[in-house]
């Protein structure tokens, strides 16, 4: 079945629940099958399937939100500072990066997954999520940064202090 593994993996990360993800995938393929006549031959089928999935996801999340609140992380700093660039550990373990991703708010997580894992273009992401291109760019940048911050946090919690390296770099400069 086309794209099943990619869709399922993304769904798992988006919903953090394997059963919900499975349901979502089933609904996605059902919807794809029903509206197959609307698929334009020659266009990107992968993007089309993801678009359907995110459309379904919207409904699923609305249902889930009733039971648990989605918390948006607010960045009080606003502007990005050069010095505040989080330092990511050299070795990143799988569970660390997945845990870090889970901590990133959904609207950013969606974009990071679509851009970095599924490698869709900005235009495709904008169409999939039905948001403007500029929003894709800002959210991706924000999402990646949040992910880096979470990973830096993980490194600190392990007692690896990445700062000395930065200090060393500053000295040489």
């Amino acid at each position, binding site marked *: 079945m086309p794209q099943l593994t990619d869709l399922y*993996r993304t769904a798992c*990360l988006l919903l953090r629940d394997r059963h919900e993800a499975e349901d979502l995938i*089933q609904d996605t393929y059902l919807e794809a099958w029903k509206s197959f006549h609307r698929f334009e*031959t020659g266009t990107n*089928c992968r993007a089309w399937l993801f678009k359907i999935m995110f459309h379904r996801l919207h409904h699923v999340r609305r249902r889930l939100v009733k039971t648990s609140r989605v918390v948006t992380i607010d960045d009080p700093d606003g502007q990005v500072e*050069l010095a505040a660039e989080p330092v990511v550990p*050299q070795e*990143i373990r*799988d569970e660390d990066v997945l845990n870090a991703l889970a901590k990133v708010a959904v609207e950013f997580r969606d974009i990071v997954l679509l851009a*970095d894992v599924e490698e869709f273009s900005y235009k495709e992401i904008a169409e999939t999520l039905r948001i403007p291109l500029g929003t894709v760019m800002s959210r991706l940048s924000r999402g990646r940064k949040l992910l880096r911050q979470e990973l830096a946090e993980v490194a600190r919690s392990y007692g690896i202090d990445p700062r000395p390296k930065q200090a060393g770099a500053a000295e040489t400069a």
Partner: protein
Amino acid sequence: MNTLSFDSKRCERIRLQLDSYLSNELLVETATEIVRHLESCEACSRDLESRMRVRDALQRAVAKQPVPDSVRAGVLRKLRESQPRSLLSTTGRRWAVGLAAIAFLLFSLFAGEWLSLRRSEQLIASILRLGVSDHLICAIKGHNYPEVANPPDQIRNKLGVRYAVLLQVVQERLPGFEVLEGHVCSIPGSDRKYVHFITRGQGTILSVILTERNGASLPKGKFLASAESAGLSIYEDHLSGMEIAGFESAQYFAFVVSELSQKRVLQLAGALAPALNETLQTTAFQGLNSYVLDALFKLRQEIPTSQRGEIIQALSACKGRVGGTDGAATRLGISRTTLIYRMRRLESTPNCIPE
């Protein structure tokens, strides 16, 4: 001091674009500018490197996520479950058909048994006629096959995911015959679909034709008790100078049609029947609606096997030319700059085709 602040301003500007650079979304000029800056600025290139590290780690971690088989099964189940709606609408019709059949049965009891016999014979005769004419039109007159056998992958593609598995069976069970072509065809004016394999061997063309039974049966009188193969009765007939040997599977009729002698055709059908019957009865054939499978198969065909392959193919076809009216970009239907990005992403440069 001045230089330093200028540099940090510049770094700031570059870093704002690093995300787009990482996603290959920048114009060539801007990307070149960034590359130039990264070459001279260690801090920025370290920043880019850490971004790439996170991205790669994420890709790797996601790719390692297990995908249980139940997911696929679940999707298929769901698709199948969605069928009842269309089945329900036909249930009404089935009732009508059922009532009509009962009425017909009662009528035929009075009107004489021969009438029903005639009817089923007519249906079979029409199927046979269509099957034979399919062989005649498609294989003999239309010469709808290549002199050199089509590659198996191409035949499988033509057959679609549902019937592709049959190719191997036909190939294995008809030794001395080469499968030239396989496809699904129908005859103008008929809804009936035929799965048609055209084979060549023993100095002639031989067709293996399958078609759905839709509840019909072959007339009992023409089964040859002597030509039974592994419990399957072989049916024998001849039409328009062709010998036909057939059998019925749970849902399909299968025929071998050829100009060979009756004995030989029966022999070949006998060799083919058990394996073909077994394949036709597997779950893949019973469980799924052919429409779903076909739709999904079409879906899969829309996806290029790999972007890389597509680009390389276009580049080779255009002798490495990227831009211009006869360039690879035009061929792929994307802009010249987009193609250059993608090539860069695939580590190939203009006029240099990898492998």
